[in-house]
């Protein structure tokens, strides 16, 4: 501990009450768009953000791809086609509702963001004549250049544009406030959500927010299995402060979750083991289409899904013979044959054929505009690349026409991890939703990466806007409700207890997080067994009962970090309970059991749902196609929106 005095006023003892129509919890991509939608519907909106809304969230610094904008004027596929392909790719374990919204309204949101000041097309004609550019609209596409449904965008301009729009619309923004709990009618778990509590991360001040509707936009959990006390900011792919507070408070309040038993072997950005995202040699995602060479300069060929070698760079961006469209290049998620894109030969084949390690990403021989769009546009606009990759590499002398960048590991993962080092990545579990993006708790809506099986910027923006719209309708038809004083008192006791403990014999947030992660690796690793899961649960419960009362924090910032770890502990228990609930292995959930009985498999082919009611855990199930007919249900639930879009045309 150094002797610098805390620079902000300490307000642990003061309390502020705020009433509004719509309460938005989290100011990332989904939260900003939810607040904008609700404000446009004439509702008073309060947005609460732990960081600084202007750049907060996974997409705050940028984003280079907007996926699945199937209604853009150049697209050759329909929202139905893409959504069905996504569902099929995951054998049904995907969010049909939210991904249909993504496909259906993505282009509407892009136009919206363009009006706010975001850049979505090549207005300066820097890429005129490129294969990936549409000359009329100046829109630019990625991956499948023939079907044109994923756009390249200048995402570093988006978040500040949304921030300006929020202020223009009069949304009241509370930055540096951590939402700590959901307030329930009568204080009852499983009841109606009537507001939230918060704590200022610099002053420690307590907030009581009342809203007629609330929208959960705090993204997804992290640091469950992966932790480094030295470099906690490098533990995971997502921002340091995004660790799943929303899931924890939702679980406490009685919200229903699904797919929480799913976790994947760590792939990306964990504990500094891998290299900076998008900063090492690879040919996926932002770098899709890049040539790979071996350490003697020999080029590694691309092949289509049938193994036919592709001779021209332009073929890397085309579907193969007889294929309607492909989703993404590369084998990031081992896509099904139907939607598999071109990819370099497999690692094993390359070694067998005598290619020498290490491999390098080589932009030098790409057509000029392909090189320029990857190095300078995508690397630059993609999250976490403008300064740490593009600027810093350039300043250090990197020249894409001359230099090649080393690949680590076997490709996009840029490192190899142990099987028990797991992550909620890809399409992890989350809040269960209906066609309004409502949860099982009345008055609580959910959007973005808080939703189960969610991912991506466009998905967050579209579901945010959609939940904002539906939340606003609910708010317009309901009134504010009296807060339960006991619930508020209990919450105050919970969050401020650690500042009363003595530092010298107490436990800080890093020590607790490290213990939780180790427990999860030991008892909830790659292969699940009831015996181990149950012991894991006991350990976690012990931390809750015996360790939490002995934790401490020096100041409001560290208290924030500590409350986050309390939430990590809560989410870890939710995960173990969810694992216990599924008795048989399920490949699409990357869920493997060492103690399964075969007869369980068939009957468990469904979403297993989990929630708490009156402090008891309730397990339920929903069929994989519970969302019904996509188009019909969408139209039935969005008549106003469809009418308004028609009027505007």
């Amino acid at each position, binding site marked *: 501990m150094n002797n610098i005095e805390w620079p902000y006023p300490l307000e642990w003892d003061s309390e502020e009450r705020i009433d509004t129509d719509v309460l938005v919890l989290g100011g990332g991509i989904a939260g900003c768009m939810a607040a904008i939608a609700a404000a446009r519907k004439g509702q008073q909106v309060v947005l609460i953000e732990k960081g600084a809304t202007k750049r907060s969230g996974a997409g705050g610094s940028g984003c280079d791809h907007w996926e699945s904008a199937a209604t853009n004027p150049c697209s050759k596929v329909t929202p139905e086609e893409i959504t069905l392909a996504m569902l099929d790719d995951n054998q049904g374990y995907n969010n049909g509702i939210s991904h249909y919204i993504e496909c259906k309204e993505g282009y509407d949101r892009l136009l919206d963001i363009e009006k706010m000041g975001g850049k979505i097309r090549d207005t300066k004609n820097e890429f005129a004549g490129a294969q990936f550019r549409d000359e009329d609209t100046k829109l630019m596409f990625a991956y499948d250049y023939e079907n044109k449904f994923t756009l390249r965008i200048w995402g570093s301009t988006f978040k500040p544009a949304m921030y300006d729009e929020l202020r223009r619309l009069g949304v009241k923004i509370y930055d540096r406030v951590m939402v700590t709990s959901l307030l329930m009618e009568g204080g009852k778990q499983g009841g109606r959500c009537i507001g939230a509590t918060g704590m200022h991360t610099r002053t420690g001040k307590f907030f009581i927010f009342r809203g007629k509707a609330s929208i959960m936009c705090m993204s997804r959990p992290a640091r469950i299995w992966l932790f480094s006390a030295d*470099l906690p900011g490098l533990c995971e792919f997502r921002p340091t*402060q995004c660790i799943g507070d929303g899931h924890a408070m939702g679980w406490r309040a009685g919200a229903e979750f699904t797919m929480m038993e799913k976790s994947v072997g760590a792939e990306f950005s964990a504990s500094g083991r891998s290299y900076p995202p998008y900063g090492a040699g690879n040919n996926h995602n932002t770098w899709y289409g890049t040539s790979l060479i071996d350490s003697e*300069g020999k080029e590694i060929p691309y092949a289509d899904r049938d193994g036919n070698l592709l001779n021209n760079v332009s073929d890397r961006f085309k579907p193969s013979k007889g294929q309607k469209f492909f989703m993404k290049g590369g084998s990031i998620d081992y896509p099904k044959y139907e939607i598999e894109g071109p990819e370099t030969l497999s690692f094993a084949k390359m070694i067998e054929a005598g290619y020498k390690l290490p491999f390098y990403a080589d932009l030098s021989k790409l057509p000029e505009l392909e090189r320029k769009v990857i190095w300078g546009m995508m690397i630059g606009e993609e999250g976490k690349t403008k*300064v740490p990759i593009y600027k810093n590499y350039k300043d250090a002398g990197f020249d894409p026409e001359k230099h090649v960048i080393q690949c680590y590991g076997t490709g996009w993962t840029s490192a190899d991890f142990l099987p028990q080092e797991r992550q909620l990545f890809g399409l992890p579990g989350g809040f269960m939703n209906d066609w309004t993006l409502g949860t099982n708790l009345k008055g609580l809506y959910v959007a973005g990466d808080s939703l189960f099986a969610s991912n991506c910027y466009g998905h967050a923006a579209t579901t945010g806007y959609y939940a904002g719209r539906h939340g606003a309708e609910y708010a317009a038809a309901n009134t504010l409700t009296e807060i339960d004083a006991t619930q508020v008192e209990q919450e105050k006791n919970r969050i401020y207890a650690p500042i009363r403990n003595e530092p010298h014999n107490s436990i800080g947030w890093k020590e607790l997080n490290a213990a939780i992660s180790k427990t999860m690796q030991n008892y909830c690793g790659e292969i699940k067994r009831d015996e181990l899961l149950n012991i894991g649960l006991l350990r976690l419960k012990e931390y809750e009962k015996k360790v939490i009362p002995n934790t401490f924090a020096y100041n409001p910032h560290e208290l924030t970090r500590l409350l986050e770890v309390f939430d990590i502990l809560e989410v870890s228990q939710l995960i173990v309970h969810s694992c216990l609930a599924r008795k048989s292995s399920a490949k699409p959930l990357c869920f493997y059991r060492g103690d399964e009985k075969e007869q369980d498999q068939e009957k468990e082919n469904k979403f297993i749902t989990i929630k708490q009611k009156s402090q008891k855990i309730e397990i339920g199930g929903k069929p994989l196609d519970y969302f019904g007919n996509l188009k019909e249900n969408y139209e039935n639930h969005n008549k106003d929106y469809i009418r308004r879009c028609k009027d505007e045309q």
Partner: protein
Amino acid sequence: MNNDKKCYLGEMPSANPIIYHKEKCIGCNRCVNICQVDLFIPNPEKGKPPIVLYPGECWYCGCCVMECPIEGAITLRHPLMNQVHWVEKDKLIKNKEEK
């Protein structure tokens, strides 16, 4: 160099993500207020570079640098172990020929 013949206490950080350039920084604290992780605090002395209080928590997003009004006042640096290697392609080919 430490010329004042004194030592100070403190734990060695595992990384120094942020470097301030004293002669350029105007101490406006824009970097402090944009950081979503909130790892800085303003310098108690007005006009001086902020203090990096929690360097380990940095997410390496670069927003602090993007927000700074003064070119070159603040640098973001990946930890040494995360610095990526690149080489001249011609050298790879030449190495092969020499073998």
